[in-house]
């Protein structure tokens, strides 16, 4: 496949690995924020091709994993309302809430439908005017523009039975929160597709104020190895800056159309992250003009008290403080078939990735 195969060339990957080994002197830690990067690193065993000086940490970039327990509990309660349809991205249905999951509610008779695109949720609403459809809006800057475009379309087409339960999140505040929280890092492998929307400028103060090196990376093994090489060069030269490795998709300014849609439909709010807690201005909620799409305005539910799973260390894994094998439940009670924590649910979750490639 074009733009895939050429970035998987084994010999070239090995060459970049040799170059990294040659120039890396300092002991450093770099975090790959995005779950897509975590997957590629383990799938292609890139971690085994790095010198001992470089430690890779996985970050909070899997949208399913960072969705809070109370968000799942809220979606579960909405799903119990008579006549309700929950139209959701697939990974979310298996995430355990305090007492149930969307998957369990589906087996109890709730109408929960898996969609690939939020636009399918709108089509379900259009086809079922007597029913109500709630879309649990999860994801970062990559999915919030799609939700925004769909909400605008719903408004324009007067579809009044489609709602968005927004848990959309934005990336830079959590990256800063991790550093302020004491996670020791020299740099970030920054998410390529988030940056395609936002442009590289959103990371500028991570470099200028926090002294961190940032390289925006593509998702193929050669992309990631080159990004690590660029980070090592920056860190060895003590010259932190924001660089783009993934230039075929990312530029400085990003996708202006997508940014305008998000700014039009959403406003920033404080948001709850699984394991990380409340982070200031890290989430998106519908702004007043689109408040009619907020299900909270139309339906009353009682969300039971949140209970976090016992012994689960998802929070520390999402912060890069622990790795999955540090968890006593990993690959024992907690497996992809029977996940206890969110990081084991999504295929991009750190625990699911470690589980899949553990041998």
């Amino acid at each position, binding site marked *: 496949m074009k733009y895939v195969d050429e970035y998987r060339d084994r010999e*070239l990957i090995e060459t970049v690995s040799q170059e990294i080994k040659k120039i890396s002197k300092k002991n450093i830690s770099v975090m790959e924020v995005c779950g897509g990067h975590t*997957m590629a690193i383990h799938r292609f065993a890139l971690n085994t091709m790095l010198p001992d000086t470089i430690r890779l940490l996985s970050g909070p970039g899997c949208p399913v994993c960072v969705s809070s327990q109370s968000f799942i509990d809220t979606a579960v309660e909405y799903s119990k309302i008579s006549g309700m349809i929950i139209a959701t991205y697939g990974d979310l249905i298996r995430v355990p809430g305090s007492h149930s999951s969307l998957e369990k509610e589906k087996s109890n008779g709730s109408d929960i439908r898996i969609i690939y695109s939020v*636009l399918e949720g709108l089509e379900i609403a259009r086809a079922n005017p007597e029913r109500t459809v709630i879309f649990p809006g999860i994801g970062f800057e990559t999915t919030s523009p799609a939700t925004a*475009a769909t909400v605008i379309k719903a408004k324009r087409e007067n579809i009044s039975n489609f709602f968005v339960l927004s848990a959309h999140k934005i990336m830079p505040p959590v990256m800063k929160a991790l550093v302020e929280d004491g996670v020791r890092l020299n740099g970030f492998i920054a998410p390529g*597709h988030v940056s395609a929307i936002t442009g590289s400028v959103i990371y500028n103060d991570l470099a200028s104020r926090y002294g961190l090196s940032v390289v925006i990376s593509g998702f193929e093994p050669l992309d990631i190895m080159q990004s690590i090489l660029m980070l090592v060069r920056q860190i060895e030269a003590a010259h932190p800056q924001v660089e783009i490795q993934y*230039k075929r998709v990312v530029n400085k300014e990003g996708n202006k*159309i997508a940014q305008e849609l998000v700014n039009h439909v959403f406003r920033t709010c404080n948001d709850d992250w699984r394991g990380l807690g409340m982070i200031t201005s890290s989430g998106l909620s519908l702004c007043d003009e689109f408040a009619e799409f907020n299900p909270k305005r139309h339906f009353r539910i009682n969300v039971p008290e949140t209970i976090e799973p016992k012994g689960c260390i998802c929070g520390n894994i999402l912060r890069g403080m622990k790795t999955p094998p540090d968890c006593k439940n990993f690959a024992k009670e907690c497996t992809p078939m029977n996940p206890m924590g969110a990081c084991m649910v999504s295929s991009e979750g750190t625990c699911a990735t470690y589980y899949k490639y553990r041998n």
Partner: protein
Amino acid sequence: MCLGVPARVIRVEDNEALVAVGSVEYKASLLLLEDIKEGDYIILHAGFAIEKVDPVEAGETLKLFLEIEKDFPE
């Protein structure tokens, strides 16, 4: 859910494109992108085309790899 993949545009109709990822075809909403035409490559993410792939920059990145290889022939 969150993985974006490069996809080739087969056909454009209004705000939607038919795209191919390898031999599998998908619909891609073009509500987030302008000026997309047949033969372009886009990043497909949860049913939306989120950005165009720049063929010139793609070539430049590969050239950089080949330069490293030239420097270290072993």
